[in-house]
């Protein structure tokens, strides 16, 4: 038997006995970032496909959540910083090796774009809206004319934003649970599914609801496949990753992960949507809320559990 103990008593705050340097702010941001990515993705996708009028909620109404989600998420990230007054240092450099640097700049691009997108559709909410200044009116007209181009840019950046939430974690090789390339796609799909769920919830059009219900079902199936793939990968990997998987296969996160994330967050809403699609009526709020809840619990568990997994001691 091998046992390793600190005898000089290393007890650095938030490092020992288990790492806990990232608190609620990070999973909250990861959720809001993923949600915004999902909403912007579908808004720009259906604009690019020329179905703006067919899927009004997706293109015109739901994206109004995105800038709020991003601003709240950025605020959560700011709260997480321990040396807050130096936050501007993020924007004095671009570091290609650092996913967090990429993410900071991506947010710098996506957040204003999300405001622009909402501004272009503000007359849907306030029909008498007046931009007042001539320059703003001209700018708005120009953007309306070039909306396809804008949609393409947002489409690309929404995917980067969604993948980034996972890559941020997967780039840390010191935390075996995070150190898997499947995390990027998994977080992207999860973010898209929370976006689709919100659109489904907000939509008053039966056809649009049905489409996003189907999209959600497909995304849930992909997510389940990625989750199985994640654990298969861990179990076929090195000792530290096998140990990481054990936290979910009998260890302390087993119940919360399989019941709340996989059960209540994926399988139950998927079943409800299948029942709905087969003709029986189920209030759309139930599966949509469960997907959103599952999404946020998933991020809390991944951030918490990842910090528990380590190489030494």
């Amino acid at each position: 038997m091998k046992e390793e103990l600190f005898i000089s008593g290393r007890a650095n705050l938030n490092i020992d006995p288990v790492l806990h340097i990232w608190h609620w702010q990070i999973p909250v941001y990861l959720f809001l970032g993923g949600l915004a990515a999902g909403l912007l993705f579908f808004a720009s996708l259906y604009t690019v496909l020329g179905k703006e009028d067919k899927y009004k909620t997706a293109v015109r109404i739901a994206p109004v959540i995105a800038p709020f989600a991003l601003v709240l998420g950025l605020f959560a990230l700011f709260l997480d910083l321990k040396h807050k007054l130096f936050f501007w240092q993020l924007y004095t450099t671009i570091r290609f090796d650092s996913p967090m640097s990429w993410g900071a700049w991506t947010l710098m691009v996506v957040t204003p774009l999300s405001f622009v997108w909402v501004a272009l559709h503000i007359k849907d909410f306030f029909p008498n809206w007046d931009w007042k200044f001539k320059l703003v009116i001209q700018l708005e007209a120009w953007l309306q004319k070039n909306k396809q181009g804008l949609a393409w840019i947002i489409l690309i950046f929404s995917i980067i934003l969604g993948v980034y939430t996972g890559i941020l974690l997967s780039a840390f090789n010191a935390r075996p649970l995070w150190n898997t390339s499947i995390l990027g796609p998994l977080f992207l799909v999860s973010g898209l599914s929370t976006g689709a769920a919100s659109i489904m919830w907000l939509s008053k059009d039966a056809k649009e609801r049905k489409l996003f219900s189907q999209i959600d079902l497909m995304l849930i199936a992909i997510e389940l496949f990625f989750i199985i793939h994640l654990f298969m990968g861990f179990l076929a990997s090195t000792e530290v990753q096998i140990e990481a998987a054990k936290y979910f296969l009998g260890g302390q996160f087993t119940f919360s992960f399989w019941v709340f994330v996989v059960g209540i967050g994926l399988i139950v809403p998927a079943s409800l949507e299948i029942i709905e699609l087969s003709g029986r009526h189920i209030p759309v709020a139930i599966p949509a809320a469960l997907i959103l809840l599952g999404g946020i619990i998933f991020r809390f568990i991944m951030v918490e559990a990842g910090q528990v997994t380590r190489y030494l001691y």
Partner: protein
Amino acid sequence: MRYAMAIDTLKCVGCSDCVVACQTENNVPIGYCRDWIVEAVDGTYPQLEIELRSERCNHCDNSPCVRACPTGASHYKEGGIVAVYHNECIGCGACIQSCPYDARYSHPEGYVDKCTFCYHRVEKGQKPACVSVCPTNCMYFGDLDDENSDVSRMLKTRKYKVLAPEAGTKPMVYYLI
């Protein structure tokens, strides 16, 4: 120039003098430490083997903390010493997450702090505080590029290991075994 440290696990008695010397020399905030002692017990009684190790930042050649840092606050100094510019650090914790040795911590003032190999002493030609106080002389510090440095000579003649080599960080603190 490549600074490195070799620590003789057969000579270390785990007295923690290095820990206290570091805390004093570097004014480490109370309750924190930049180096620490690990006791590794292997086997079943009565066949037991004990290894004592004084551990600290490994000043890795392939430092994940320097790569993870979004602002460039974590950087390499001359001789490969890994250090943090306090006024560039935003306290995001990316470097702390990236370190497989958990050698970094968040200083109460907000920036991230860690072992500096006592750069302020080394640049004057002195040894790091921990090395200079060790009562059993079990720690060796020096330049790996210099064949005659203490550390090069020990690594030439003794068997050694590094911690978590599988993490791919190429650590520069060697343990003589």
